[in-house]
């Protein structure tokens, strides 16, 4: 490791002070710094943007994509005859085969359970990592690990790293947008899409899919306050900028002040662009139906998937969608995939949600020719146990030892699988893979070398992949 050169402050502005030398005048320096202007990639990119679907709670791999005939053969037999194992919340019950029947699909002949009839039709565009595992089987740390590469809180999320590495492609929209489940936050809360120790400019902007007129917090003032922009509208912003420019005149060369002037101008642009992007009413009825946006159960997630497509279309670099929540007081069914007592009920509900939204997203991107340049990823916290849990043997406990992630588009081969779990789906057996390889692969497709994307923090050049990670070349076109 070279002796690191630590800038005075690693603010977004000073990091780009070099741009000053590249000419273009102060105004453009400040503005480009503000916008997180595009950064040169490490190598040629296949994907321009990422849509990441996150399924909190822990999706069962053995009921979805990871076909385990041996589990069916041992159905009802003790999973742990010696009684030595202790899962997150229970002792293992009997072997429990998939609650849905598996079938082969597409030309690739990959297996998908009956939980995902629509996604199964997209199988030849999807690539699976069957051998994912996690360093934890706890929800909070599990979410953190899959989003930030660390089980502890405080680290930047993948979207933050990507915008730190690549900047924004859009002039009018934030580069990293998150669409949380309207039912609530995922385990671990907002910091799942936080910037950690990276400058706050890299944190995700939350877009409210339910209120397209006011999709970003504080985008517009409440009450009778005049708007800060609007064509022709009398604007208090002029006065502010006049004061700021006079102040700057006496402090020439201060790019921080220049950037702050530009920030108010960008904010005004965002007031126009964000509601436009968030408004799905201009989409054709057919499209709206495909995403099921009017269905009371499927609708919220479908709308988010549709929004995600609209956002990447408009140059947003990284969109994260949550399929499930955590801290909500909803009573009826589990608010996410965490199916301890009734997996047919809870996976049944969420499976239908994911199946419709994600398949519509893949089909829609493909039909618009956007899939090639958009990497779609679907991840969860961890998998679930092949053994049954609960008095009715209808649930499954947490399993940090194995789960499945899938990718599509953006330079990923379709219809391929990588790695494997053991016969029962208890542990990743062939090519066991932590979040690191998945993250390294995604960064690679975006033109970033995960070992070079670093940021100094408290003594360490931090990376999304810690000191690990290999690009899974088997999945690349």
């Amino acid at each position, binding site marked *: 490791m070279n002796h690191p050169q*630590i800038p005075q402050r690693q603010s977004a502005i000073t990091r780009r002070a070099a741009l000053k030398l590249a000419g273009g005048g102060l105004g453009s320096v400040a503005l480009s710094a503000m916008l997180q202007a595009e950064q040169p990639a490490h190598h040629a990119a296949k994907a321009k943007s990422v849509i990441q679907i996150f399924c909190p709670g822990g999706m069962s791999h053995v009921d979805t994509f990871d076909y385990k005939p041996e589990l069916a053969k041992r159905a009802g037999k003790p999973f742990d005859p010696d009684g030595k194992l202790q899962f997150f919340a229970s002792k293992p019950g009997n072997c429990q085969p998939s609650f849905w029947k598996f079938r082969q699909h597409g030309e690739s002949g990959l297996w998908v359970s009956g939980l995902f009839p629509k996604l199964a039709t997209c199988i030849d565009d999807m690539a699976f990592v069957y051998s994912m595992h996690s360093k934890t*089987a706890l929800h*909070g740390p599990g979410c953190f690990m899959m989003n930030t590469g660390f089980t502890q809180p405080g680290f930047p999320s993948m979207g933050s790293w990507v915008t730190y590495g690549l900047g924004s492609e859009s002039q009018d929209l934030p580069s990293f947008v998150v669409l949380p489940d309207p039912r609530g936050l995922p385990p671990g809360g907002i910091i799942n899409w*936080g910037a950690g120790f990276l400058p706050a400019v890299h944190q995700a*902007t939350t877009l409210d899919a339910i209120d397209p007129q006011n999709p970003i917090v504080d985008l517009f003032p409440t009450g009778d306050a*005049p708007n800060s922009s609007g064509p022709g509208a009398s604007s*208090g912003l002029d006065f502010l900028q006049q*004061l700021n420019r006079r102040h700057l005149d006496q402090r020439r060369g201060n790019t921080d002040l220049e950037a702050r002037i530009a920030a108010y101008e960008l904010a005004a642009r965002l007031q126009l662009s964000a509601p436009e992007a968030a408004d799905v009413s201009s989409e054709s009825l057919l499209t709206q139906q495909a995403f099921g946006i009017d269905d009371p159960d499927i609708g919220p997630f479908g709308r988010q998937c549709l929004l995600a497509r609209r956002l990447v279309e408009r140059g947003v670099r990284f969109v994260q969608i949550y399929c499930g929540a955590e801290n909500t007081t909803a009573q009826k069914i589990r608010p996410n995939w965490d199916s301890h007592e009734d997996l047919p009920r809870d996976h049944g509900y969420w499976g239908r949600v994911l199946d419709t939204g994600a398949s519509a997203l893949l089909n829609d991107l493909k039909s618009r020719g956007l899939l090639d340049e958009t990497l779609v990823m679907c991840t969860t916290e961890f998998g679930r146990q092949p053994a049954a849990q609960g008095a009715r043997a209808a649930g499954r406990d947490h399993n940090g030892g194995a789960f499945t992630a899938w990718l599509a588009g953006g330079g990923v081969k379709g219809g391929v699988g990588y790695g494997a779990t053991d016969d029962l789906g208890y542990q990743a057996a062939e090519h066991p893979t932590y979040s690191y390889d998945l993250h390294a692969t995604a960064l690679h497709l975006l033109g970033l070398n995960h070992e070079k994307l670093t940021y100094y923090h408290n003594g360490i050049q931090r990376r999304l992949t810690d000191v690990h990670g290999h690009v899974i070349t088997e999945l690349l076109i």
Partner: protein
Amino acid sequence: MCSVIATLLCGGVTHSATEISTETPTVNFERDVAPILEANCLRCHGSESPDGDFSLSTATSWRESGFVIPGKPEQSHLLMVVQPDGDEPPTMPKEGKHLTQSEVTILHRWILAGAEWPEAVTLRVRSKADSTWWSLQPVSQPVMPKTASTSNNPIDHFVRAKLDEKDLTPSPAADRRVLIRRLYFDLLGLPPTPEAVKEFVADSRPKAFEQLVDQLLASQHFGERWARHWLDIAHYADTHGFERDKLRDHAWPYRDYVIRSFNADKPYDQFLREQIAGDALDHPTDESIVATGFLAAGPWDFVGQVETKSPILRRAARALDLDDMLTQVMTSTVGMTANCARCHDHKLDPITQREYYQLAAVFAGVRRDNRDINPQRREHYEAEKTRLTSTVSQVAAQIGQLQGDGLDLADIVGGGNGFGTGKKGLGLDARTGKIQERPFGDLGNVKPGNFAACDSLLIDGVFVPASGQTRISSTGLIVNNLPANSGKAWDMIRHGPVSSQYSTTLGNIDYNSAGHSMIGLHANAGITFDLAAIRNAGNTRTALDVSTVEYRFSAVVGYGGRTVEPSAEFRVHLDGELKSTGRLGRNDTANISIEIPATSRFLTLISTDGGNGYGHDQISFGDPRLTISTPATINDDRQEQLARLEQKRASLEADLRSLGEPPEFYGVVSEAPPAVHILSRGNPEAPGDSVSPGTLGFGKADVQFGTNDMPDTSRRRALADWIASADNPLTRRVIVNRLWHWHFGTGLVNTPSDFGFGGGKPTHPELLDWLADELLRSGWSLKHIHRLIVTSQTYQQTSVPVVVNQKVDPAAVDDDNRLLWRMNSHRLEAEAVRDSVLAVSGKLNHEMFGPGYRDFDYKEAYAPIYTYQTADSPPLWRRSVYRFIVRTTPQQFMTALDCPDPANLTPQRNVTTTALQSLALYNNEFMLKQSRYFAERLQREDGSSVDDQIERAFQLALARSPDGTERELSRHAIAEHGLWQFCRTILNANEFVYID
């Protein structure tokens, strides 16, 4: 591979090496060979998870590898791979430079000579920095350089000397308005009042600035400002973090401790000792004990450490917990990233993996938890409380008997006497009879048919019913033929609903509402009340003859779960005899009324699940009452007695209320430390050698750590002594550098928490040591250092670059201003922005200390829900340092202004400028409301003259008058958009949030 061997055999190396070996003395392994292997091979082929399973770290491991054949260099694989193969470069090392010819020669000679490797010698990767690293050298006492500066402050001479080297000239002093604004924000985090500005500008005394400095250092707001800096590096917050981000209601005493310590200018060595081992000092005080809140300030994973049943997950969570604690202590106090040595020896600094685990052993006995500030006070409190409660309970029982009220069996389940002294929500474990408060699910280790006694005198005991024989009393009463059931048990027998209660409404009455009560009896469970004891307790002080008291037991029985069809069964037994039974679903209720003769001893209530094992099967007994069958008439005597008793009860209850619970705080609980092992690659499931407590290998040598017998407190005491010692080369350097960083925006070392190889080097090493030495000379007084820094000419320079009097272009020589040829301008931190808005609007609430203000709605849930609300009432207008900080749900307005995530240790804050920040300041409802209050203030204090209002607004917010153009623009803006819109603009101005 064959071709490699061939090349080697035929090549010239063998020949020349043989020649050399005959001419030179034997190779010394440690002196000659080890450094080559350590520098080139060990990084990959070391002891921890060696690549290719080939380790060069010990004599045994390389011998086993077979890659070296003693005496036969030509056949030794090691030698083949480090040399070129024809035109192909050497295959090893894969990264870094190839071995030089002379290094290859040494290896060759060593193998030829028998490849001697002393067993005791273990090779390790060398860290980049060793014990000669600058920050590990003793603090020197530098001589002040002689410079052209006229200042009598040594700081200015140290700074000037460096400027002179680059031909740079200091900038002139800032004007007084700039200075007072700078100083107020720097020392207090608040804007100066217009009156204070006016007074200072007019003050012609030569020491006016120094006097202002003294005045501000003495202000109580100083501690509020500087505590926030320290809380950043303690990653303090008021919730636990992680998935179940629970409230940490008693964290704030530590925050107050920091404020008080800074205000009192507590000697810094004492400040550190208290925070690490304040409960282990020779004479601990309330204050020093609260100081240990420092160790507990970071996040804590409830699910990982408490909730999960998996021991593997628990160990992992605990390992991270200890890592967080020791990282915080070592980076904040001595600026060493010891945490980098958790998986392997530190690659940059001389810190071994063993030392990391020795430090972990220092904290191994520490658990984060609420604790009493003073245990004696707690004991006294508990004794008094028990005494008073029990007296109240007796009096209440007497009153109840006189009035003829029924005894409430639910109250008895809650630990009471049947007359309202029990605690609602309390539960009894049907397996053990123990009292539990928190909710439970599926219970393990259930033994149906087993009877367990309870602490309550009025309850004989509890049990989980077996389908066959079940013992239901302490006297050995047995019932047979109970309904078949699954033999499982869930949650507790509760005073109130059980944890999975679907509904508390039975029939049309909600028995969980005021005026009612209920026993939540989760299937499968039973409880037996001791009627004899109840008769005695209730009637001894009344005129009734206990032996003749007859009761009637009445209740409304219902089903509290979700299932509609009849699913759970209840039974009522009197002395073992079945009196009532039924099978109930969600829509069913049963009214029971059972006569209880004076001779009956045991009343038993049982709930069973009908054998289906549904987790939510449960029975509720609504208003379970024992009433005396023949209530006594109340005569005058009794009326009088009743009045006396009521009076007594009121007075006792007042005593109870005024007792005042002794203060608690969130700190550390000291326990017997478990053995600590070196964990291979940091993996808690791969423990290696056990280690005793210890610290890093520099500084004060005579700190005694001892063995594993050492109690927790002594371990922390020893570490505190090592850190807070004048001999520790880092402690003083680190803190004076932090102060410098917070005053100037950048430290002399620009990585305030990393003084190792990975961090920056000091721009002014002599000045750093001089300040560190000065700290010691002043008795570790931080205010002394503050005063020195802010009264320096260096600090008082203008921040606007003045290039005209420079010989060279400063931007070309020192664009980052590390040499301080001018002052740095700063943007205010999130807290200072918010506090300033409140100060300017006139709404700032100066109340100090105590529980933090909560600008959110809190909703209890498995993972609690925090929903922010607009801070629009005086209690929420306190200074931001008193904000109740939630980890998983950060306050977005503050985050937009770069308030850091308290999961992270934050020695220096990021400063970013974003559109979302502009939107927050311009549109957030808090800002809109405050703009209106600002406008109202102007109207109230400055009448209706627009010019007066404009003048005053500039003075309040910017500490100056507007110039003619600004006045004109302002008039225009007010005319067009109104006064409050003008105020909103001022609060958004660059000048408001940037300090020159």
